[in-house]
């Protein structure tokens, strides 16, 4: 079976005046047939540059990328026939209606909406009541659905989605991921990027990316398991007060706010240290805390890796 995406030492350097800016460096990765692969990282990590190289829109400075064994530089015409790319910023024509946008993108690929209706049906049905509305007047969630339809209208076999859920509310985000799951079930290979760490767990495998480099590639559960030490959640009614108190306790290694709890790791070498933390907090007048050991999430691992990188 052909591997849909292969990157070998892929890198991109931008020249700005006399300065070199390394956007992406030494990326090695493979995405398998029918896989839902997530690129997880904040703005400026290099996700979009990587997408542009994979979708043949940008020539790499170093290394190479193969899409279905075709080189993104030499074979770009062939590759463009069977990939779908949804760029990060809303890329539809705001002044065209829903239907006009879809028609336009179908025509670009010498096809029609009718010929591909089955492919887009599930999503397009939700848009049909508004087919004469201008794209610019749609809500955020609906815009994303239309953009996805336009990306699918020429029946691609590999999908590249650059931050499809950024700025979208939690309910629309969940719906969007449902659609991706459905596409995956139909055999589509999907590479999707997101800055939302909670979406990572919905992928088959993820690459954590920061400063143009991949920090880790694995399944979300394996990434979580690699945290490698105990993680505790400490809850109190006065979270910020608690956070400052924890920072003053020498045996605490890291402490970060996570919603209504603070996630804490303890410096190695002391078995009963979590009890000692509890005592130390009490000495500072904080006695209403609830402490429990928890399974690390992707965000915990990501922050851990970020800190190690700095150190």
């Amino acid at each position, binding site marked *: 079976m052909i591997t849909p995406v292969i990157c070998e030492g892929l890198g991109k350097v931008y020249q700005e005046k006399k300065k070199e800016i390394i956007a992406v460096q030494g990326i090695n990765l493979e995405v398998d047939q029918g896989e839902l692969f997530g690129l997880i*990282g*904040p*703005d*400026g*990590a290099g996700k979009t540059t990587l997408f542009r190289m994979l979708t043949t829109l940008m020539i790499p400075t170093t290394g190479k990328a193969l899409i279905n064994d075709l080189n993104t530089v030499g074979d770009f015409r062939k590759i463009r026939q069977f990939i779908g790319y949804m760029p990060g910023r809303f890329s539809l024509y705001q002044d065209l209606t829903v239907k006009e946008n879809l028609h336009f993108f179908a025509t670009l690929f010498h096809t029609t909406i009718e010929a591909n209706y089955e492919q887009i049906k599930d999503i397009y049905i*939700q848009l049909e*009541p*508004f087919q004469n509305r201008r794209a610019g007047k*749609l*809500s*955020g*969630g*609906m815009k994303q659905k239309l953009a996805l339809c336009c990306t699918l209208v020429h029946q691609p076999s590999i999908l590249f989605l650059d*931050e499809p859920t*950024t*700025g*979208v*509310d*939690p*309910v*629309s*985000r*969940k719906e969007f991921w449902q659609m991706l799951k459905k596409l995956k079930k139909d055999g589509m290979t999907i590479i999707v990027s997101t*800055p*939302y*760490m909670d979406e990572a767990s919905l992928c088959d495998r993820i690459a954590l990316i*920061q400063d143009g480099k991949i920090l880790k590639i694995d399944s979300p559960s394996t990434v979580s398991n690699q945290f490698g030490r105990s993680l505790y959640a400490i809850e109190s*009614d006065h*979270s*910020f007060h608690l*956070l400052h108190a924890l920072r003053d306790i020498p045996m605490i290694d890291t402490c*970060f*706010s*996570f*919603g*209504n709890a603070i996630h804490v790791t303890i410096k190695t070498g002391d078995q009963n240290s979590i009890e000692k933390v509890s005592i130390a907090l009490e000495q500072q007048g904080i006695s209403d805390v609830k402490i429990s050991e928890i399974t690390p999430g992707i*965000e915990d691992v*990501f*922050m851990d890796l*970020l*800190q190690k990188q700095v150190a």
Partner: protein
Amino acid sequence: MNSTEPVIIAKDLTKKFGSFTAVDQISFEVQRGEIFGFLGANGAGKTTAMRMLSGLSIPTSGEATVAGYDVYHQQNQIKANIGYMSQKFSLYEDLTVRENIWFYGGIYGIPKKELKQKIDALLHELAMTEEANTFVRALPLGWRQKLAFSIAIIHQPGIVFLDEPTGGVDPITRRQFWEMIYNTAKSGITIFVTTHYMDEAEYCDRVSIMVDGRIEALDKPSILKKKYNASSMDDVFVQLARGAKRGNS
């Protein structure tokens, strides 16, 4: 938080565009020094409501005062007494750090002599003294956000409106940003913030959740979670916003 001093009072505040009611009789108060989370699905009416409260859009009906000024007749006073920052627009990338502060300080009418001192103090506080003459576009995103926030409150406004201030920011910087928010609130500046990160909703003193132009829920995160029998604010949000009729249009 001084609970006897409301800085935003809205009563039946409504905005219609033709036959479409974008904001439908919302009523609430925000207290001085409070961190108030303003949540809602895309299209629920948050932006329209924020535009009315920041003096950019005249309501169709209802009443509201912001920092003591009326949203119908005192829009310019409102603008002078609030700060605003969004992820999309905040700083001029082609100006240096110092020039950006100088520009905004000037707009808010801070006297030159005072502004000069303020800039130095601010740069020191942000540990950005060495970057004073760096173009903003060359700064890491996280630094830009912190700078943008500091500039939004440079004129010591009574309230600062933050419109998705942390979108796309890395997880560590996002948390540092919330500490700045918290410290700012402690200094007495009221924070009015929107976000799509539901863990951040937990950091707010109170949150409101808008659905189809109305405020469907408003309380402390802990109370909302109890009321909706939810383990997180994400659950609360999904329960409420799933009932939306117009979110999908």
